[in-house]
Every structure is written in C-alpha cells, then in structure tokens.
C-alpha cells in the first residue's frame, strides 16, 4: 500500500496540474472570445467579396477568356492540399481530427491516381505530414496568428500558393480547416480554393437581383485582380475559423482536464484520510495492548 508520504506527494502534484489546466482554460476562453470577434468582423468583407465575384463570375463562366483561377487549368492531375492546423497541442482532438480528414482526402486522391502536393500551416500539421508523407510536403508555414490572425499573414500564404499555381505546379487547390460552430463542436471543412468554386449562395441579395453592372476597367481585368484577392480572403477566413476552433477545443479539453483532476484529488484525499485513520487506530491498539500487558 502507498505510504502516507507518497499519497501526499501525489495529491500535491495533481493539484498543481489542476492549477495549470484551469489557467489554460481561462486563457483559452479569453482568446476564444477574441478569435470569435475577429471572425465575426471579417465576415462582411468576405460576404461582399463573394457577392461581387458572383455577379462577375456569372458573366464570365464558360467564356474562353475566363482566367484560370476561375475556370481551372482544364485538368485536375495535380492537387495541392493545404492543411491548416495549430502550432500548439493540448487542444483536445483539434489537430487529430483535421489530420484524419486530411489523410482521408489524400488517400482518396492518390487512389484516383492524382499527384498530391501538401502545404501545411501550423507546426502540428507540418510535423505529422513530415512523418507520414515526407515526399509530398512542398511548403509549410508556422507561427501564423500568434497575436491574432492578420490579413497580411493570409495574404503571404495566398501569394505563395498563387506563385506556385502560376508556375503550373498544381491544378486544383483545397484547404482543410476546422469551422467553428461552438466551443464543443468544430466541423472539419474541406474547401476548394482554386479554381474558384461556383458561389454556393445561389440567389443574389435583394437589391442586386437583375442589376446589370458596369465594369471599370473591363470585367476581365477586375476578375484577374479580384480572384487572387479572393484566395487570400478565403485563406484568411479559414485561418480565423481555425483559430476560434483551436481555442474553443482547447477550452473544452482543459475544462475536462480540470474536472478530471478534481475527481482524482477527491479520490486520493479519501484514500489518504483512510490510511491516516488506519495508522492512528493501529498505533492506539499497539499502545493500549502494550499498557494492558504490563
């Protein structure tokens, strides 16, 4: 049986673990709030960008002059998979679920006979891909969004992607990230970046319906400016969602850990007290029987 001293040490160590996990929970909660606000604040831009693109794309789709970012390169032999994860662990199943989905996608693509290239955002994703698909990894970015995600970071990622696209290194690009639903639920999402998927919001907004826009300069020129920008915006949105998901997931994980530590302390304290009483009783019996023997 564990000695009293061992038990005491054990309790103390669990107590300090609980202190750490509860502190991490508080930190994650406040970061989550910030990340959520940031995601919220970025939405108007994305929505308007999409609206503009939708009206532009409608007039361009199918035309031979449509830029490759919209129409694709005409084939889909090489796929670029961008995996967005976090830099830090201890966020419950956050990185694991993203990577599981990524693995599924990659395997499916390989099974179809496509060439797959992988780009990772975040240390966890990079490490995992390095272990499993070291040959497919072409680029990795870490330390994104240390102090909140900034658009400039998303922009530099998108520039890297676009340079590769223009160099003809891949035909289709998708990004895998976790969409934030709540602190408990994050939905792993696979989104196609290039070519630009047909806008999912089918009906254009009220006042735009039927409006015929003039374009200045030409539609094509605006599109060639707007599309790269849109890739940046989509990556930015993905990173923001991912950041919120990461903190949400960490908050939940740390909440669980804190609760588990509490339960453990309760159990250990019970054992400790029982042992202590048993020792006292034993000592009393020894003293009494010693006195009686005299």
């Amino acid at each position, binding site marked *: 049986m564990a000695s009293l001293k061992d038990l005491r040490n054990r309790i103390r160590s669990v107590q300090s673990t609980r202190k750490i996990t509860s502190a991490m929970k508080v930190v994650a909660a406040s970061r989550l709030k910030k990340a959520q606000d*940031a995601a919220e604040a970025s939405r108007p*831009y994305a929505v308007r960008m999409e609206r*503009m693109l939708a009206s532009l794309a409608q007039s361009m789709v199918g035309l031979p002059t449509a830029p490759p970012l919209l129409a694709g390169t005409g084939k889909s032999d090489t796929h670029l998979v961008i995996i967005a994860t976090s830099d830090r662990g201890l966020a419950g199943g956050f990185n694991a679920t993203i990577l599981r989905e990524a693995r599924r996608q990659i395997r499916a693509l390989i099974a179809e006979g496509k060439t797959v290239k992988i780009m990772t955002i975040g240390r966890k994703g990079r490490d995992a891909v390095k272990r499993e698909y070291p040959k497919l990894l072409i680029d990795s970015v870490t330390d994104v969004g240390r102090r909140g995600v900034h658009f400039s970071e998303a922009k530099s990622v998108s520039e890297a992607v676009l340079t590769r696209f223009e160099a003809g290194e891949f035909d289709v690009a998708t990004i895998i990230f976790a969409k934030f639903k709540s602190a408990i639920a994050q939905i792993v999402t696979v989104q196609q970046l290039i070519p630009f998927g047909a806008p999912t919001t089918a009906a254009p907004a009220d006042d735009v319906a039927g*409006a015929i*826009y*003039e374009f*200045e*300069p030409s539609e094509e020129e*605006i599109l060639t400016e*707007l599309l790269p920008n849109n890739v940046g915006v989509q990556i930015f949105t993905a990173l923001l969602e991912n950041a919120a998901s990461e903190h949400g997931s960490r908050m939940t994980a740390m909440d669980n850990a804190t609760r588990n530590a509490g339960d453990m302390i309760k159990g250990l304290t019970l054992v400790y007290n029982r042992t202590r009483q048993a020792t006292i009783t034993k000592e009393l019996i020894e003293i009494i029987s010693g006195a009686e023997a005299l």
Partner: protein
Amino acid sequence: MAEKVKFELVSPEKILLSEAVEMVVIPGAEGNFGVLPGHAPLISSVRPGTIEVYEGNNVAERIFIAGGFAEVTPERCTVLADEAVTVSSLDRGAVDIELAEATTRYGESLAAAEKGNDADKLRFKAAERLLAVATAKHQAIEASGRH
C-alpha cells in the same frame, strides 16, 4: 439634399466605416468618380488614393486607401479596401521616408528586372506597387493642405 447613399468601407479585418453620406468620391482605376444616390450599378477596381466623403458641399472626411474594389448600386456604395487610414492620421515624416525607400527600391529592382529574370520581375512589380502606394499617400497629404 435629403437623399443619401449608404457608404461602407470594409477591410478584411473589419468594417471601417458605415454611414449614410451625400456623396463620396472614389479613386477608380480609370479616374476618380463621384457617387451620388441613384448611381448606375458599377463595379470598379480602386487605385491607391484618397476617398473623399462629402457632407453639404464640403469634404467631411478624407480616407487614404491602398487599393481595392468598389461596388456601387443606386442605394449603396461598398468599398473593399486592402488597407485604409484616415488622411489626418498619416504621419508626414513617415510617409516621406516610405516614399524615399520605395523610390530606391523601385530603381534597384528596375535595373535587376531589365536582365529578364522572372523572380526579379516579380520583385519589380511589388516595388512598383509600393511606390504607387507611397506616392499616393504623399499626394494625399499634400492635397489635404496639411504641413
């Protein structure tokens, strides 16, 4: 003038401005254009320059933007900006330095780009853009008559 146009200035990170205004002047890619209520639907790209918001017949606010896109409908005018600051918060000294740096970089990359290397050409494009932004900032300050 009772009618107003709903003007929104949005950056990727947040909505910078959303208000009903009488007129805005936007530095479009092919020249400045003013937006009054009832403007024909228009989508235009925006060059680096100053957005002027008019109240009455006076400029109520000048905002510098480093480029972006504008969407105009009869009721609404939305500008998606890459980077935007009010002209009054631009620092003359800093802008002067930025302009000088951009000019030297432009010169350097121009020399390099003439040799025809692709990477250098890209760098030249970037430097060209930086210079355009810096020049526009400089002009914005000059135009606001602040010294």
